[in-house]
């Protein structure tokens, strides 16, 4: 796992995020979205506004949590297309926090993004700023995933026995689910009843239970990657270096295919190499996120490792819905957190969990990639 790139040599316990950091965070969160996660531009402007009004937010690392800290994981749940019209109520994050504190009988001092990929990696900074709490430098996924079961605390075996959900009108649901699958089922039903979009919080963690149960360093990492994207003259190469990853191919999209079935939008995109990559052809299999890259029938990278398609010139991430014929793109791939490579991690979010009958091989071990 890469060391926290924002650490100063003196290993300060806290960093802070200000309004000026938000463009980099948003750009970086989009990169970690692996093609999904919801568009970042509206979270970005809300968070910038919150930080200007309420001041910067402290970022605290997992190892620096104290016994006074309680962390809770917070995320928006539902359809982004509803979310751009029925925006959230100002009071939702506070409602969640107060009701959770009341139930748990102790103050919540830290908020953690459920997924760093996409808008859910940006919005929590704004909530924390308004609530006067800290943000954990870490998240539940290290990327974006479509299912609530695909979170690090679940892999680590932390029991999910508390969950809270609220909607724009102020309805609050507190749950003690039997397990995550049941939670997902109830949470979806509530989201539909709430008009398609809700705010949810679960997995209250202490300094002790957070160890090994979160993907560490991802908020500062997203800011770092975003800075490389926004300020480097060669953004794609700069990001590959920051991520300790690879540019698999640079080329042009020559085919975009989508099929609906089984509740999933499955698709694939073909990239024909240009310049040094002329003559090469790679195919990306995708659903809401990019999942597998193949070349000459061989799997180069697969989920849970991260694959993001970016604009070859600007380096900005392109979501799966916006992929089009003729776009000049580069495919960035990099390693996931070791937690996802455990047996349990692969069972929950490996290729088989997405319907691909392929064995998982860590991408850095593939021939021809490094």
């Amino acid at each position, binding site marked *: 796992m890469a060391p926290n790139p924002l650490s100063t040599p003196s290993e300060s316990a806290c960093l802070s995020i200000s309004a000026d950091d938000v463009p980099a965070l948003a750009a970086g969160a989009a990169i970690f979205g692996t093609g999904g996660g919801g568009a970042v531009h509206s979270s970005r*402007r809300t968070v910038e506004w919150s930080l200007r009004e309420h001041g910067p937010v402290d970022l605290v690392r997992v190892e620096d949590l104290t016994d006074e800290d309680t962390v809770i994981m917070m995320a928006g749940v539902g359809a982004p297309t509803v979310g751009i019209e*029925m925006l959230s109520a100002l009071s939702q994050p506070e409602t969640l926090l107060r009701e959770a504190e009341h139930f748990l009988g102790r103050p919540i001092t830290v908020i953690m993004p459920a997924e760093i990929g996409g808008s859910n990696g940006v919005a929590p900074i704004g909530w924390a700023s308004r609530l006067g709490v800290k943000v954990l430098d870490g998240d539940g996924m290290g990327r974006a995933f479509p299912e609530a079961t695909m979170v690090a605390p679940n892999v680590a075996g932390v029991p999910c026995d508390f969950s809270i959900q609220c909607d724009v009108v102020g309805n609050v649901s507190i749950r003690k689910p039997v397990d995550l699958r049941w939670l997902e089922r109830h949470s979806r039903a509530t989201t*539909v009843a709430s008009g*398609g979009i809700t705010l949810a919080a679960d997995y209250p963690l202490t300094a002790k239970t957070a160890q090994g149960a979160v993907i560490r360093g991802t908020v500062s990492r997203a800011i770092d990657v975003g800075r490389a994207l926004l300020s480097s003259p060669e953004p794609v190469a700069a990001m590959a270096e920051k991520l300790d990853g690879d540019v698999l191919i640079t080329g042009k999209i020559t085919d975009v295919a989508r099929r609906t079935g089984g509740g999933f939008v499955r698709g694939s995109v073909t990239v024909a190499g240009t310049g040094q990559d002329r003559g090469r052809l790679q195919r990306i299999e995708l659903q809401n996120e990019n999942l597998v890259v193949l070349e000459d029938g061989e799997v180069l990278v697969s989920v849970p490792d991260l694959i993001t398609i970016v604009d070859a010139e600007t380096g900005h991430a392109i979501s799966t819905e916006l992929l089009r014929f003729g776009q000049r793109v580069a495919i960035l791939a990099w390693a996931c957190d070791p937690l996802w490579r455990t047996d349990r991690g692969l069972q929950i979010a490996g290729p088989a969990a997405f319907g691909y009958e392929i064995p998982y091989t860590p991408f850095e071990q593939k021939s021809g990639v490094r």
Partner: protein
Amino acid sequence: MNVERDLSIGVDVGGTNTDAVILDRKGRVLASTKQPTTEDVVGGIRSGISRVLGDIGERRSEVSRVMLGTTHATNAIVARRGLSKVAMIRLGAPAATSWPPLIGWPDDLAAQVLAGAAMLGGGHMVDGTPITPLDRDGIRRFLDGLDGSYDTVAVCGIFSPSYPEQELEAESLIREHVGSDRLVFLSHDIGPTGLVERENATALNAALHGMARSVTRALLAVVEEEGLDAVTFFAQNDGTLMSIDYAEQFPVLTIGSGPANSIRGAAYLSGTENAIVIDVGGTTSDLGVLVGGFPRESTLPREIGGVQTNFRMPDILSVGIGGGTVVDVATGHVGPQSVGYRIDREGLLFGGSTPTLTDAAALSGSPVGGRSLPSLPKAMQTALAAALDVVTDRFEEAVERLSLGRVDLPLVVVGGGGFLVPKRLASAAEVLRPDHGGVANAVGAAISLAGGRADQMADLDDREAAIEAASRSAIAKAIQAGADPLEVSVVEVLETPVSYTARPAVNVSVKAAGPLAHLSAAVATSR
């Protein structure tokens, strides 16, 4: 004997020039002119109309329609001039309270435009369930509290494009309470889903109202001065027209009509309904796509004067290649710097010292401006020749991006720098260069249909009902814009799947258009 009065004047105001044309019933160009755009805008329009009328002599009495594409609205917003004070009401609280109205606007624009904003109870969820009851008293109290310090009222309800009745009820309530001398503008008339962008567009529209009224009066005066017995229409951002009453009510819809006119005009002049159009100017080339006679639209957010909106406007790809683009002889780089309108002083062809693409074209033998190049050093000749290869590559790439893989579409070339486009491109079936390409946008304005658009989000199972409802609404809007009720029809149905929903859902967007009603009426009465 009744003479058919079927001539149309099309006028398009551009950044540099105001173009005007006269078309006959068959779409033939009888006269055309380019006049400099004036600061007050009306002056250039007057010159353009006057000039083309002069060219057709006595036939001027046959002019029955004037179609206008203008930049008044954009200019007013960008320059922060002549804007009215708006009382902004958003319905749907407590939903959306995380982003108050106009929070993202540049300070100076908000200070000029906003009299006050309120987030009140009301609004709907995606399935039509009311969020909270409509806060009628809240509306009244808010307006009373502004103590008359506003000119217009803008109302934006959550999910109003799908459920417009509540905004209409708010309008009645407001009129009853404050009288009818202050106009009320409703967001569902102005934009699709996307709360912040639609609300912004509605506020901008309300702010443009005062200016809209004075512009329409000025233009009617020009038409009258010329002694024309003609009906005036305005071009909308999607390439359709609206009547003068509609334009006075929805001035914000005139923003961005230029590119749509250019694409439609270029394709019309070359006799195609499906084409890629490239307009090569001095500094950039703008490419667009025509599908079934209408410009393909982009739904990416648009910014006007620093404000985010979501107007449907043509999907334009801009490439930094134009007649004045500078060729760096040392590195071989082509642009993006350009000498722009200073080409006739700085280009090599005109005795200047800057190698430009115009010079490269002249060197390769294109007849440009009837002039010839001085003798050039070998290195420069090589660089200029190589530059044309770069230009071809960039155009090929751009055309390919827009064609989405099709290679059977023609490429229609217009604009002063059109000579830079080679005779053949691999990504297009053929390259067409129609006559009168220089005034393609004015032609586009003149041939436009009257149109309207409506959106509806629905479960996949209910898509037929959603398409029907949106169709009825789009047709009503087209008629309101001036289309002949007997001729109007649905011209486009777009369905976009909605992702991450519990049940499969779609967003349905319907466009209706038809020829203007006036012509049919004139035919009817001239028997």
